[in-house]
């Protein structure tokens, strides 16, 4: 399982474990970690750190009736296990991303934004501002050299692309800082589909800007 070559930065994994990432970025990291055992382990280690800090936290007494209250609320005894989504094309349906899709990646309603480039914005804005979207790059299509206004996380779901950093295939993750520039080009025979999270909501002025800004850094 470890043919993954590109991983999130350590601080991004730590922020995920501490619950500090916005929802969009959390989905991208969870998607990578569902595929990458190495990063899943790093997250567990940081969660253990959280457990250690929890144990070290100064105890503050709860109200006198709190235990009784807790027992009563928990009592219905119904086990709240969320039902599994029907498994269509494994393993993609097992990805955390599936909760944000209606159906599978094959059912995504793409919107063309430029020749060979289409995207679909997903709803993941409930928890702290952040933008989550899927991007599809046709084989051989090269995006203009662009930089990023803010931090951006990208995980590859299908196909592959290459840029100045290296080759990115399924499961690989690019953890870019604001100001990093690159020129991704889809390689191979199938379209490259990536899941991208931007840290902050992007404000666009024009329709063209809305399309191009995330890529060109206008």
């Amino acid at each position, binding site marked *: 399982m470890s043919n993954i070559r590109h991983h999130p930065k350590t601080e991004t994994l730590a922020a995920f474990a501490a619950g500090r990432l916005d929802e969009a970025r959390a989905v991208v990291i969870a998607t990578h970690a569902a595929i990458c055992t190495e990063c899943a382990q790093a997250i567990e280690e940081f969660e253990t750190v959280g457990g250690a800090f929890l144990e070290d936290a100064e105890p503050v007494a709860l109200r006198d009736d709190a235990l009784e209250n*807790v027992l009563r609320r928990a009592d219905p005894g119904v086990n709240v296990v969320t039902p599994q989504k029907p498994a269509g094309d494994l393993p993609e349906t097992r990805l955390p991303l599936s909760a944000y899709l209606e159906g599978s990646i094959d059912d995504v309603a793409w919107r063309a934004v430029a020749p060979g480039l289409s995207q679909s914005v997903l709803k993941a804005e409930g928890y702290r501002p952040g933008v989550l979207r899927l991007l599809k790059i046709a084989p051989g299509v090269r995006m203009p050299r662009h930089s990023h206004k803010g931090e951006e996380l990208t995980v590859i779901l299908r196909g592959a692309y290459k840029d100045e950093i290296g080759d990115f295939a399924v499961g690989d993750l690019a953890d870019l800082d604001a100001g990093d520039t690159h020129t991704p080009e889809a390689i191979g025979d199938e379209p490259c589909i990536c899941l991208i999270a931007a840290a902050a909501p992007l404000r666009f002025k024009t329709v063209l800007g809305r399309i191009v800004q995330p890529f060109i850094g206008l």
Partner: protein
Amino acid sequence: MDEQLTRVAQTGDKRAFAEIYAYFAPRVKGFLMRGGTIEAEAEDLAQDVMVKVLRKAELFDPTKASAATWIFTIARNARIDAVRRAARPPLDGEDPALAPEEAPRADVLCELKERDQRIREALENLPLEQYDVMRLHFYHDEPHSAIADRLGLPLGTVKSRLRLAFEKFRKELGDHL
């Protein structure tokens, strides 16, 4: 506490739960308050967390995490849920596929205990200034700029200390593996 939690999972043992409650509920509340949550809210959240601990006890897998780590992830998610009420990616032991199937093997438990011990040692070996920012990073869900204000340090210093802390911590763990 791992044993008590396992007992709660297997038999719904209320006395074992009361022990877990006595130890963890005040710590969860204290943890949230250290993170800047006001007391009334921390009280409600701590109760929510303990309700979840009881309801989800059978998803606790002592071969994957200690009780403290598991309860931390529940508290962390409760704090996130308090901010929003939508779905969050399941990487938090709530996935039914992650539920343990058979009784945990002693050697696996032993390995986990050793790992927890190593993680604690790696934490304690951090320089104090790095330890402090790392703790704030876990207590708070506010931006690093707010942590910088709290410590009276420039933002860049907080960020670089955090990065150093994570790297040293990971390296130390790696050295022991």
